[in-house]
């Protein structure tokens, strides 16, 4: 029993040590953002200071970080909504209809997951240029329609949890096929759609390369690109850089604190299915 307590203590110490390592950089970032540049450069800072407002003002003077946050939120929400809706449609189509080449098409769809996302980036840029879509949000939103992972996850759900009889009864009631999908099937899919939406949202939120090459206008730029430019924009103004980081982390921290149970169980469910 004594050995048991010893092992348990070691386990807890290990868990706590890793947890502290995870959170310490964020803690340090928040603390540092409240000090002036001389202190940041010279001291190891452990307690909050009073320079947050001054740092914030210098940051906002040349980089509108809230604008970036709003732009990212807009693009991410639009892309996620489109992605989830389209994947629901496609997953449902593969699950409940029979048509020629169905299996070949599904394998083709899965194969797209093996292709690295950056392969076509130059062609994509040139194509968007010829569509006159450079410096707009379309190239960031429209490609989200096709997600093989989403289709795969949703098809599995529909295969196992949506009985075909429901479609039949919908047809008997005189609904058209598209109506059946919107009125009957979509509500039944809510659990899997919510889980998948979390995946889609996180992926899109962190998107960096596409907005960086597609958008030129500073006011249109997304948050990750603004954050990447902080170092060169504020060479030795560390206070302003730290405040920018805080703006990019704290909203997510708040959101995650409120939703962590749901997000983690969503990630687990998706992980098992994937």
């Amino acid at each position: 029993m004594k050995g048991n307590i010893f092992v348990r203590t070691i386990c807890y110490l290990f868990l706590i040590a890793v947890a502290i390592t995870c959170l310490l950089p964020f803690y340090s970032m928040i603390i540092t953002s409240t000090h002036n540049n001389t202190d940041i450069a010279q001291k190891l800072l452990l307690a909050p200071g009073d320079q947050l407002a001054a740092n914030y003002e210098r940051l906002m003077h040349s980089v509108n970080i809230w604008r970036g946050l709003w732009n990212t939120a807009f693009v991410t929400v639009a892309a996620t909504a489109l992605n989830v809706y389209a994947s629901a449609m496609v997953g449902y189509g593969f699950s409940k209809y029979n048509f020629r080449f169905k299996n070949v098409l599904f394998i083709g769809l899965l194969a797209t997951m093996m292709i690295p996302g950056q392969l076509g980036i130059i062609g994509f840029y040139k194509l968007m240029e010829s569509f006159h879509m450079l410096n707009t949000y379309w190239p960031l939103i429209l490609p989200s329609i096709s997600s093989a992972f989403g289709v795969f996850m949703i098809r599995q759900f529909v295969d196992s949890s949506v009985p075909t009889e429901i479609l039949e009864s919908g047809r008997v009631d005189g609904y058209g096929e598209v109506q059946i999908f919107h009125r009957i099937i979509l509500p039944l899919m809510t659990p899997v759609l919510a889980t998948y939406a979390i995946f889609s949202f996180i992926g899109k939120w962190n998107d960096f390369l596409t907005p960086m090459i597609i958008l030129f206008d500073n006011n249109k730029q997304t948050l990750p690109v603004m954050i990447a430019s902080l170092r060169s924009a504020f060479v030795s103004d560390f206070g302003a850089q730290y405040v920018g980081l805080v703006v990019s982390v704290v909203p997510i921290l708040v959101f995650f604190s409120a939703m962590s149970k749901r997000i983690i169980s969503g990630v687990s469910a998706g992980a098992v299915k994937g």
Partner: protein
Amino acid sequence: MKSKVNKSAYGYLFISPFFIAYALFGLVPILYTLYLSLTKWDGFSDPVYVGLANYERLVHDSFFWQTISNTLIIWIMSIVPQLILALLLALILHEKFVKGKHFFRAVYYFPNLISTVTLGVIFSLMFDWQTGSINKLLINIGLIQDPINWFNSPWWTRAIIASITMWQYFGFNLIVFVAGLQSISSEVFEAAEVDGATKTQMVFKITLPLLRPVFVFTFITSVIGGLQLFEGPLVIGNGGDGPGNSARTMILYLYETSFKAFDYSYGAAIAYGVFIVIMIFTAITARAYRLKD
């Protein structure tokens, strides 16, 4: 079966969004990139067909070969400790006596939600050799006398980039492993306990073998993602690719060639070179897994 009406047209209707969008935003760009890789093109005048000239240049480009090894080194430096840590934590968190399971999982997972760019900037500030908190901390607790110039050393630069990826993804892998552990029937463990197996025996003889498919799956999927490493090195290198280009990864080279030097046609050849490298390593990993079975 009851419905005699042929609804197959609706099947095509429902699946069409994926294929139309993928053709337009995925396939056409990929094929267009292939075409560009066979041309000489500066972005202004019309592309001139040059056959395989760009690929010949690529094969003899020592910078490209260096980016392959840089990418692999950083990937291995991040994936090996990452999977070991995630597995260890998953095994501990699976134990019945541990309280606050959700809290720990949430804390470990949190960095996964922060964008790589943000993490990269945090790390580059923390490891700044004159003003960063890491050096000050190490000096304060007496581990080092003088500050270490981290980004002046190729290996520290790579290790820091690897640790960003590791920090960002170990919590995700942990959740995958915990889910895998939960899918192992508890009867197996109860039977082993009845037979008098020790805890260590159970981990090595039951848990790890049963978890192996999940482990290998994670490893294989990480090849595709890990070899596309880009944001971390970009931010950490701060436009400079690290000492001796030690932090220049394949995608970073692709980005610099195309969108900074505007050599689109050579960039397109690099894109296909990267694609081939990733396919080769995916095949090697998948094959190594199959051979072991």
